[in-house]
């Protein structure tokens, strides 16, 4: 088992850096390499980093096939309105998924793929299950849900062709002090709109717990999807009361105005976040312990409390060089 070559795509993201940092400490990992358009957020002494944009397919294929990984961990996804506009996020995510997973399939040593997915994949259509488990039908109703469904589809195709096992880690909305999240950003605004008629519950996952789950999926050779969701749930109004924000009740058409205003103030509300506010987002995390051997350390209410405890901007005074 020791001495495995592990390749991480999306190592420059906060989640990617966390996952790679944890993989560096895993005894079964022999060598580590990563790829992203942006450099990692922290120092990763045991990881070889390649800075390659997702549209440079040839360089990506060459880099991955030269490394010849046993395990590919694909975290290179762009959530709409997190770091990129929905259109740009869709394009980058598609390019990265096709290049990285396709390139991994070319490597002769590849045995296992782990892809980052999301519970948005189940969709929140009328009469959809309150807490879908991994066997629930995939009926995404948002752009982000369709994007992660496409990633799983690409990975499943590769699995069928090459005969490698694929594990999909379906994460709840990830929140963390440095994670760019449209949901977290919106909840931290001083005044936040909420649906007064619905105010449905949702669950989240802390970045550290998400990273532990992805590392466990790589270690255990997860060969099926698994929901990774913190226990408990909270409604938007309850979250705002915990954070002492001003809730702004909305009913229907006024949402368009609220979205436009939120966009102008630098906190766009993409369709998957609007769906959380109108229809909620829960998922059954009952198989996490069985499949991954780990459970989330933080509950949803813990994460929400921490969300309001994280400092907004840490201002560092300029260093003055002594004359």
């Amino acid at each position, binding site marked *: 088992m020791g001495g495995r070559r592990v390749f991480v795509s999306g190592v420059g993201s906060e989640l990617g850096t966390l996952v790679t940092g944890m993989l560096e400490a895993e005894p079964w990992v022999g060598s580590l390499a990563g790829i992203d358009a942006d450099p990692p957020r922290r120092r990763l002494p045991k990881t070889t980093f390649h800075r390659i944009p997702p549209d440079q397919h040839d360089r990506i294929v060459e880099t991955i096939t030269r490394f010849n990984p046993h395990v590919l961990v694909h975290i290179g996804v762009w959530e709409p309105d997190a770091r990129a506009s929905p259109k740009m996020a869709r394009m980058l995510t598609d390019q990265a998924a096709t290049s990285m997973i396709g390139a991994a399939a070319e490597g002769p040593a590849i045995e296992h793929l782990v892809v980052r997915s999301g519970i948005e994949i189940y969709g929140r259509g*009328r*009469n959809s*299950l*309150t*807490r*879908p*488990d991994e066997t*629930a039908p995939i009926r995404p109703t948002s752009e982000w849900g369709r994007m992660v469904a496409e990633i799983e589809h690409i990975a499943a195709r590769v699995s069928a062709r090459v005969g490698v096992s694929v594990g999909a880690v379906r994460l709840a909305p990830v929140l963390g002090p440095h994670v760019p999240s449209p949901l977290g950003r919106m909840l931290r605004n001083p005044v936040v709109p909420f*649906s007064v*008629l*619905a*105010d*449905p*519950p949702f*669950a989240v996952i802390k970045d550290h717990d998400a990273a532990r789950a992805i590392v466990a999926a790589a270690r255990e050779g997860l060969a099926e999807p698994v929901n990774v969701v913190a*226990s*408990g*749930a*909270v*409604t938007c109004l*309850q979250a705002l*009361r*915990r954070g002492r924000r001003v809730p702004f009740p909305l009913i229907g058409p006024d949402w368009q105005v609220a979205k436009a205003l939120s966009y102008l103030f630098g906190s766009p509300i993409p369709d998957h976040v609007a769906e959380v506010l109108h229809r*909620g987002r*829960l998922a*059954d995390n*009952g198989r996490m312990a069985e499949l991954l051997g780990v459970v989330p350390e933080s509950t*949803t*209410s813990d994460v929400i409390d921490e969300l309001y405890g994280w400092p907004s901007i840490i201002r560092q005074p300029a260093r003055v060089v002594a004359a």
Partner: protein
Amino acid sequence: MNIGPLGAMGRVLEFPRRRVSEPGEVVDDWGRDPGLVRQLAALSQLRWSVTVGGDQHLPRRKGALVVVNARRFALAPIFAAFAIGEAVDRPVRFVGRSDSAPLGPLGRRIGGLLDHPDEVFGALRAGELVVLGAEASTGLRQVGYVGRIKHEHVGAATAAGVQVFPAATMSSPFGRGARVEIGQATRPSRRRRGPLAELELADHLRDEIVRLLDEMGEIRTGTPIDWLPLSGLGGH
């Protein structure tokens, strides 16, 4: 459960103060709001004074499906869920919430589940107590009648490996008195490998609920005839 109308009124009046003074309260994994349920259970005591019997049969921690008889507009699964929840001191869900605002979200906040076998299966597998209503009877002529029990939901309980309990509910459209009597866990009369097991179990449950109703032995027609001392006649 029976705290009387004045006690119930006191708990209801306390509700707004608690909502303001306890901002830390959150919903559970299924979106049920324990604080709201507590208050609505108190409010429901203005309408019903429910006596629960047989709750000692229910498991203390594991999941279980409780199937009750129902009458149209009587909200039997809801008052049964509230009453059983207070009796066993653990959350109890009921099947049959809508998925449209504003009733759907309200139903979810008080422990409602969608009327879908997969939803019931998920809750039972997660160790929840779930109340399922039989098809509602529609008129006074059907007093004592137990409607069809959805065998798909009973199948969900079988698949989740939990026990299924029959329960008889009795209430009047005018009076406060109501009763929930839970029977012993029902087992299929014979072992089946296929879906026939859930059909037979549903039929068996229906027979058990009828038997429990017969044993309760009072007439509750919702008419002035209830005021007459006819309880010795038995049946429903």
